């Protein structure tokens, strides 16, 4: 570095650069927020300008629709738990050297990935009771089973990758301590695999919040069902769906925030 006469000048330049960078960042953020607000305002203006948008109706019914988010979240939480359990067994089957386990797991994944979720929901709710009355389910359990079953298949691959991401030496160390295979998996491999896949599960959960709208068609009284039901009598369909969309959007933003923090924490790790 040059010292002497040039030095105060150089320091001033560095300060100016820093100032310019901070200013640039701040401007970018302002522009970002401004664009979002402008688009939103434009959309709101477009809808209200039609004269068909009934703001009073929205004020009256929005809380009712919003109330459906409780059922939406409940369904999603229970479904993701079911999906995780299925995915663990699915993943075990996929990496198993037992041909029967491998075949069952592959069949499950292939069947679920090869058919639309909507069809699966219909079959579980409407077609299963035809096989036996024992299989008659209420709408909520049927919806949870359908979603869990579906996501379990997709998450099987996530868990397979998670299990295979645990270093081989971990298994060897556990085996060398005389632990039987089942214990090695349950106590050493699985806890580490779950740590690896937790951010991915969070991601699946956010996707599921939106897919859960499909269970409204079998009468689960969640967000979309409430929007449809409240909007239909006086033809406030447009307002109802806009409210529903905004609530879904808000839910995903909230859970994305938590998921982002979770991901950061996992990335920091405690290895």
């Amino acid at each position, binding site marked *: 570095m040059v010292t002497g006469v040039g030095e105060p000048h150089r320091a001033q330049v560095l300060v100016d650069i820093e100032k310019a960078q901070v200013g640039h960042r701040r401007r970018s953020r302002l522009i970002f927020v401004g664009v979002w607000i402008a688009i939103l305002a434009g959309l709101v203006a477009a809808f209200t300008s039609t004269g068909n948008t009934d703001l009073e109706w929205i004020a009256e019914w929005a809380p009712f629709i919003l109330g459906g988010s409780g059922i939406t979240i409940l369904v999603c939480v229970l479904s993701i738990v079911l999906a995780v359990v299925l995915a663990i067994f699915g993943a075990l089957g996929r990496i198993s*050297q037992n041909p029967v386990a491998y075949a069952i797991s592959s069949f499950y994944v292939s069947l679920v990935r090869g058919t639309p979720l909507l069809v699966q929901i219909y079959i579980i709710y409407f077609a299963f009771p035809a096989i036996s009355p024992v299989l008659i389910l209420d709408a909520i359990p049927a919806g949870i089973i359908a979603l869990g079953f579906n996501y379990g298949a997709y998450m099987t691959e996530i868990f397979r990758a998670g299990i295979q991401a645990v*270093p081989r*030496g*971990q298994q*060897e*160390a*556990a*085996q*060398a*301590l*005389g*632990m*039987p*295979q089942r*214990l090695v998996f349950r*106590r*050493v491999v699985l*806890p*580490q695999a779950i*740590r690896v896949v937790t951010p991915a599960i969070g991601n699946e959960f956010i996707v599921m919040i939106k897919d859960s709208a499909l269970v409204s068609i079998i009468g689960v009284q969640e967000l979309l069902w409430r929007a449809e039901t409240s909007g239909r009598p006086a033809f406030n369909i447009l307002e109802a769906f806009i409210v529903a969309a905004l609530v879904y959007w808000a839910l995903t933003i909230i859970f994305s925030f938590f998921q982002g923090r979770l991901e950061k924490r996992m990335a920091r*790790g*405690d*290895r």
Partner: protein
Amino acid sequence: MTEPRLPDLGARPASGTSGYESGTKLPSHIGEVIVRVEGLEKYFADNHVLRGVDLEIRQREAVMIIGRSGSGKTTLLRCINFLEEPTVGSVEIDGLCLVADPLRARSRQHQEQIRQMRLRAGMLFQEFNLFPHMTVVGNCIEAPMRVLRQSRSHATTRAEYFLEVVGLADKRDEYPARLSGGQKQRVAIARALCMEPKVLLFDEPTSALDPELIGEVLRVMEDLAHSGTTMVVVTHEMHFAQEAADRVVFMEDGVIIEQGPPEQVLNDPRHEETTHFLRRFLDR
């Protein structure tokens, strides 16, 4: 495939399976044979890594296996507790003999026998392989509690004792991520000791360590050797072998070329291969 170059064991008076010349008196602290490896061979696909190894380890004996990388020394160690299933041969530890059976390796019965075998042989790895989701003491009590069915308090007391032995009693509640490499390996030693194995197998325990951390691990191992722990160590630490070994085994191309007391094998080797290896090693 080329015909394996089998050693002519009969022509090597100093390297019978016991490693001691017949008629010589064993050092007084050394006891009965506790590990017996016979005719061990291992192929990886068509790569003949072990070409017939016979080895006996006696109680309270510290045996160091040296040789260049690729000579089969790590494979030999991993075959002793069947982390690799040998292709041919047998291993006996403390009266339990297991014959290699690669065709039935996955059968439940064979797996259970392997597990019994591993209870007799503790293993230390180059990469430590501590369980990152458990604390230091959690690492040490996991297998004693769930495999040996010890109570938590009993297992914990013993774990604390062995952590004291390796000098890490104060780290009992830390997670492995907060330990240095040397500390991790010492915890791994304590974890293995908690299972009270008949023999400890060390697979290059200091090769993954920063130079300044090697000493603390070697000191612990030397203490163990001097206090009568039966151990087999694959190592590149010649000075350590000189100090702590009762017997040094030199391997090359999947066979034992020469073995005997450290001062003989390291200072006055009888075989050209050993001389070559040691000269190249010391030149580095």
